[in-house]
C-alpha cells in the first residue's frame, strides 16, 4: 500500500500494535533512529509521519555545532561509517524551525540531546522541557564522533549517571538514555543510568570503526574514525539489547541494523519494547512503514494479539 496514506485498516485490524514506553503511549513500536531522519520534514515526501510510533530527531545541542569535515561517510560490508559530528543549528533554531513544523504532524516527538559538558546537556533538556510538543528526550551519551562529551559519557558508569541525574533534575518528561556499544559491559552502564533516574534506555549507538583506501593510503573519513551502523552490527545490537533487558527493569529501545519486520521482531524478542530504524531509511525512505506493516502481518500470521507480547519472549 501507499506509505503516504493513513491506513484505513488500522481500526479494524485484530492486532494491537500500540506500546507503552516510559509513560508514552505509542501507536506502534517503530521509531526513527536519531540522525537518520533529521526532523522528519525531508521524509514527509515519502511517508505519512503520523503512522510512526515516534519521530526521534537529530541530536540538538545548546549552541550551533558545525560538525566534522568531509568526507563524512564511507560504505562498508553491509554497513556504513559516519562521522557527521552532530552538526546542528542549536536548540533555539531547532525549536523555532523543526519543532514548530513537527508539532503539526500528530506524531510523538522525541528530541535527541547532545552536549560537551553535563551543564550543556542539562541546559538543553531544561529548554526542551518547556516545549509542550516535546513528548520525551533521548540523551546521547554515546556519539563516537565528537571530541569532548559524546561517547566519553557513555563509556563510564559515573559519568553516565551524572548526565542522567542532571537531566532528570530539570525535566519530568520521559527521559531516555542512549547507550554506547563501545564498552566492556553495557549492562553496567545501563544499571548506572537506571539508578540515576532514567525512564528508558536506547541502544545501540554506532560502533567505532575505520575505513582506509589502500591506494591513496588515507582514511576514507576526514575524521579518520567514525561510527558503524547498518545490518553489519545487528548481531552486536541484539546481543546488547538482550544483556541490558536482562539486567534492568526499564524499557529498552532496540536499534542497530533494523531493516525488516523480522529484524524488529528479533529485537523485541531480545527484550526491546520499541525499535528504531536508522540506516535502512537511506536506502529505502519508506523503511519505517515497511517495518510497521510487516510487524502487523507478522503478528497476524503468528497469532500475536498484542505486539508487546513479543517483548522478552525469547525461548531459551
Amino acid at each position, binding site marked *: 500500500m501507499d506509505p503516504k496514506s493513513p491506513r484505513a485498516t488500522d481500526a479494524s485490524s485484530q492486532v494491537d500494535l500500540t506500546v507503552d514506553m516510559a509513560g508514552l503511549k505509542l501507536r506502534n513500536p517503530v521509531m526513527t533512529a536519531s*540522525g*537518520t*531522519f*533529521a526532523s522528519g520534514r*525531508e*521524509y514527509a*515526501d*515519502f511517508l505519512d509521519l503520523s503512522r510512526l510510533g515516534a519521530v526521534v530527531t*537529530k541530536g540538538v545541542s545548546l549552541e550551533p555545532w*558545525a*560538525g566534522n*569535515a*568531509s*568526507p*563524512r*561517510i*564511507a*560504505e562498508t*560490508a*553491509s*554497513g*556504513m561509517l*559516519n562521522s*557527521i559530528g552532530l*552538526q546542528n543549528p542549536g536548540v533555539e533554531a531547532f525549536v523555532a524551525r523543526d519543532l514548530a513544523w513537527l508539532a503539526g504532524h500528530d506524531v510523538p516527538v522525541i528530541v535527541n540531546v547532545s552536549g560537551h559538558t553535563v551543564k550543556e546537556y542539562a541546559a538543553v533538556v531544561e529548554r526542551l522541557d518547556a516545549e509542550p510538543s516535546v513528548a520525551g528526550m533521548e540523551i546521547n551519551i554515546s556519539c563516537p564522533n565528537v571530541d569532548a562529551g559524546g561517547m566519553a559519557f557513555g563509556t563510564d558508569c559515573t559519568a553516565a549517571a551524572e548526565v542522567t541525574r542532571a537531566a532528570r533534575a530539570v525535566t519530568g518528561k520521559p527521559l531516555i538514555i542512549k547507550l554506547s556499544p563501545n564498552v566492556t559491559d553495557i549492562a553496567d552502564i545501563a544499571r548506572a543510568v537506571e539508578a540515576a533516574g532514567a525512564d528508558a534506555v536506547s541502544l545501540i549507538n554506532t560502533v567505532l570503526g575505520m575505513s582506509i*583506501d589502500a*591506494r*591513496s593510503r*588515507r582514511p*576514507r573519513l*576526514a575524521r579518520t574514525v567514525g561510527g558503524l551502523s*547498518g*545490518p553489519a552490527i545487528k548481531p552486536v545490537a541484539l546481543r546488547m539489547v538482550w544483556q541490558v533487558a536482562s539486567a534492568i527493569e526499564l524499557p529498552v529501545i532496540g536499534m542497530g541494523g533494523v*531493516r525488516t519486520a523480522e529484524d524488529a521482531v528479533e529485537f523485541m524478542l531480545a527484550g526491546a519494547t520499541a525499535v528504531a530504524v536508522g*540506516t*535502512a*531509511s*537511506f*536506502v*529505502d*525512505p*519508506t523503511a519505517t512503514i515497511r517495518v510497521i506493516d510487516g510487524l502487523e502481518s507478522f503478528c497476524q500470521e503468528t497469532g500475536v494479539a498484542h505486539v508487546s507480547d513479543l517483548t522478552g519472549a525469547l525461548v531459551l
Partner: protein
Amino acid sequence: MCSTDIHERRPVLEHVEVMANDRLAQGVGLLVMRAPRIAASVEPGQFVHLRISMGTDSILRRPFSVHRVVGDTIEVLYQVLGRGTRDLAGKRRGDAMDAIGPLGHGWKVEPGVAHALLVAGGLGAAPLGMLAEDLAGRGVAVSVALGAPTAERLVARALFERVARRVELATDDGSAGEAGFVTSVSARLLERDLPDIVCVCGPEIMARRVAEQAADAGVRCLVSLERLMACGVGACLSCVVTTKSGRLRACVDGPVFDAEEVVWDGSEVPPRH
C-alpha cells in the same frame, strides 16, 4: 524554468525500467531508464538517487545527474569506479531499479542571461547536457569548454556540438582539441566570449580553478559539486559543502552552488583512482 522553486516539485520514489545501457568509451556508459514521473519534473542540474542492488552488503544508493530527458525516459552518463557503478554497467534492458528524484537544486540561470559558458571536465559533462539543451531552447548563446583524458572519453561532445554555438576541446593526450587541461580552454573562452555566466562541473580542483577565472573576469559562476551521499534528501548531513553561510547539504542546498559562496576546503570526494 530554471527559476522554478524546487519545493513545488517534490521528489518521488519511482520504479524505473532500464530501456538501454550502452558503453560509450572505456569505463563510461549511458543508461536510459523509463521514469515518467521524474522525467516530467526534473530540471537541469538535478539528480536521481539510484538503488542499484537489492542485497544488504551495499546499503547505500548512488547519486547520478540526469544528463538528458527524452519523453518519459531519463538518461544517465556514468563512469565505472567501484562496485555500484560496476553493477550499473551490468544492467540490461528490462531490468528494474528504483530511483528517488528529482533531487537537489539545479542550475539557476536567470532570464536575462544572453551568453553562457559551460565548462565540463570528464564526467562533469553529465549535469550540463540538459542545461545546454535548455539554454539553447531559450535562445541563450552557449559556448562549451569540454575536457577529458582522451578523445574517446569526450562522451557528451555530440550533444554539445548539436546545441552549442561553439565547443572547444582539450584532452590530456591531445587526441582531440588542444593537449592539456580544460582550464586553458575556459580561460580563453571567458576572455573572448565575455559570457554572462559560467556553469562548471568536474573534478573539484578544476572547478575551483574555473571559479577563480570567472571571479577574476567578474563573471558569475555556478558550480556543481559532488559529495558522498547517504540519504540524498537532506536528512543525514553526510554531503555538506563548506560555504560562507556554513556547511550546506549538497543534496538539497546544492549540488549547484554559487561559486562565490563556496569555501574550497578540500572536503571533496576522495580522488578516483
